[in-house]
């Protein structure tokens, strides 16, 4: 290998350029998300102008439009920001953990585990709701993660990235089949669950945000605390160990983080398919691999994607409420195919 002798000044300027670029990308993403937020709040059966949005956000007047903003549109947009952001960050953490671009919680069955647990439990015990939804979601996500990492240990030297993804997808399929059977057997209004299972923020209320926000905040904080460890882990287990990291503890904390983030998001917004897969893959391409930048960027980009998907879902058919997941899924499936085609992943 030829070593390029970089003078100190130009090395510093390269670092500066990288940092500037990261800041610029982050700024662009934030602007994108903010635009989506305003768009999401303003459209609907009642079109609402920017000034009314500001008034409805900060002051609770008795004007109908302000009430619409405050009670319907704002929670919907905020939940899109929170759920999209947390799902994307959980995807980034899990992909780093498995060192697998396909290793997102939705591909590996973690979100389906959460969703199926919630659906089954609330079918059999209809009085469940509120905080128990979140806890059921955590439980399902934990069991599914344990299952996936159990399977990952099978075979000689573990499963290749693509095989692990395939196993995860199959487990999701199994869980959904089980759940469909139980829904058909126990409930008259399977369509309500069906709607929820596509994932979206259509019927969001402030209540959902109050329920999920503490867990999401905890998960995001944990993710940021893990950023340095994940950066080191990316160098390989041996290097990480050599640098004094307790690799098992990093793994465990990362799984906890994924369960918190994905579980809370699924509990209030349903399993939005492929969002956690797509966003981190795009973000890494934009800002590189430093988790201190990747994680916040994922948060913002995930929020933006779900906001715009929610807006698009309202344009698809204005007379019917369509969950945002319907818009995300085709985009996600396309990116999934693109990743699956790449040679170095196939084992």
């Amino acid at each position, binding site marked *: 290998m030829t070593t390029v002798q970089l003078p100190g000044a130009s090395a510093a300027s390269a670092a500066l350029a990288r940092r500037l670029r990261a800041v610029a990308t982050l700024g662009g993403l934030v602007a994108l998300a903010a635009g989506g937020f305003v768009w999401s709040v303003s459209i609907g059966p009642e079109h609402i102008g920017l000034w009314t949005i500001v008034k409805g956000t900060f002051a609770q007047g008795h004007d109908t439009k302000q009430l619409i903003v405050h009670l319907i549109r704002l929670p919907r947009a905020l939940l899109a920001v929170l759920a999209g952001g947390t799902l994307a960050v959980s995807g980034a953490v899990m992909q780093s953990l498995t060192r697998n671009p396909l290793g997102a919680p939705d591909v590996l069955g973690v979100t389906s585990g959460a969703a199926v647990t919630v659906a089954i439990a609330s079918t059999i015990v209809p009085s469940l709701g509120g905080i128990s939804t979140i806890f059921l979601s955590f439980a399902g996500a934990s069991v599914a993660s344990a299952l996936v990492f159990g399977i990952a240990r099978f*075979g000689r030297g573990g499963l290749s990235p693509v*095989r692990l993804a*395939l196993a995860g997808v*199959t487990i999701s399929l*199994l869980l959904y089949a089980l759940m469909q*059977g139980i829904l058909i*057997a126990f409930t008259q209004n399977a369509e309500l669950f069906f709607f929820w299972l596509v994932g979206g923020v259509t019927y969001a209320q402030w209540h959902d945000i109050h329920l999920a926000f503490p867990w999401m905040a905890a998960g995001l904080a944990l993710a940021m605390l893990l950023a340095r460890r994940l950066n080191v882990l990316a160098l390989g287990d041996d290097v990480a160990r050599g640098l004094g990291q307790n690799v098992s503890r990093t793994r465990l904390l990362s799984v906890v983080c994924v369960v918190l983030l994905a579980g809370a998001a699924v509990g209030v917004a349903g399993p939005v398919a492929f969002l956690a897969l797509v966003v981190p893959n795009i973000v890494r391409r934009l800002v590189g691999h430093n988790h201190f930048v990747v994680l916040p960027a994922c948060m913002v980009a995930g929020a933006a994607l779900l906001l715009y998907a929610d807006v698009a879902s309202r344009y698809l058919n204005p007379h019917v409420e369509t969950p945002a997941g319907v818009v995300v*899924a085709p985009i996600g*499936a*396309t990116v999934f195919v693109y990743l699956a085609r790449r040679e170095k992943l196939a084992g």
Partner: protein
Amino acid sequence: MSAATPLAAPGVAVRVRARRPAVVIGSLGGLCILTAFATLGVGAVRVLEPHAVEALFGHGTADQIRTIRTYELPRVLVAFLVGSALAVSGGVIQGVTRNPLAAPDVIGVVKGAALGTVFLLLAYPFAAVSYLPVAAFAGGVGAMVIVYLVAYRHGGTTPVRLALVGIAVSAFCESIIRYVMIDQAKGIGHALVWLTGSLAAVDMRSFYEILPWIGVLLPLLAYYAHRLDVLGLGDDMARGLGLPVERTRRTALLLAVLLASACVAVAGSILFIGLIAPHMARRLVGSRHAVLLPTAALLGTLMLLVADAIGRGADPPIELPAGMVTAVIGAPYFVYLLTRSL
């Protein structure tokens, strides 16, 4: 794929096992017929066993005879057709692509065919039922072609890549189906049952609907059994033996896809039978297609009969879709296959 592909068994092994296939096929056939009779009376209106068979032959109360003849008999007959068609389709696809993970459901055919029928029903809600298989054919073939084009890189595909692309394309089709179902909110529960794969809505008409397709396609594939064996020896060897490799592969694949799509038109997406039945058959009788395909067909029938009976009998009068039962059995087996080096 390595040389030790499980699809090309050495000739010696075949000769040693020469007598076993007859025994296996015979006993599986007997088991199928036995299961068919035994599960005939299971359902919303329970007809206890000796009466169920008697009613089939016209003895018993009018109610019993009607229950058995109009509700249960068609399901059993369709289970024979669909179970064997899916299994044979899977066996042929695995043989042609030399890919143990391939099957009509894995390479996207099943969901594509489902999407085809959903589109037809959307565009022409009153279309004659006999057009459904045609729409399913279009969807199934279309999905398979897309999967192949996308998975094809550097002059070939790998088993795992094909499966992954197939699953992604299936997810794509599924998301469109879901959108359609949410958008057209009426009758969503019924559509849900159909999607998971169920024989609940099957009647004598649907039996006659697919009988001609399957009746033509199955013998055609049986005719190809020997060529598939030759194909299993590897492209070069097959070419040396005078087989038009590409044409054989394309024709057999097309026939297999049509076969699986016809099933989707009446029974929805019943997953995993096409994947598992050939694997089990290969363990029982080896990999000569002339015995492998009939064995797989009987195993597929048996699986579907049992799955449908469980679906009918688990929680009457509610119908659990048979496809759900096959998925619960099939998914762990698929994961097991993945964990072994293929």
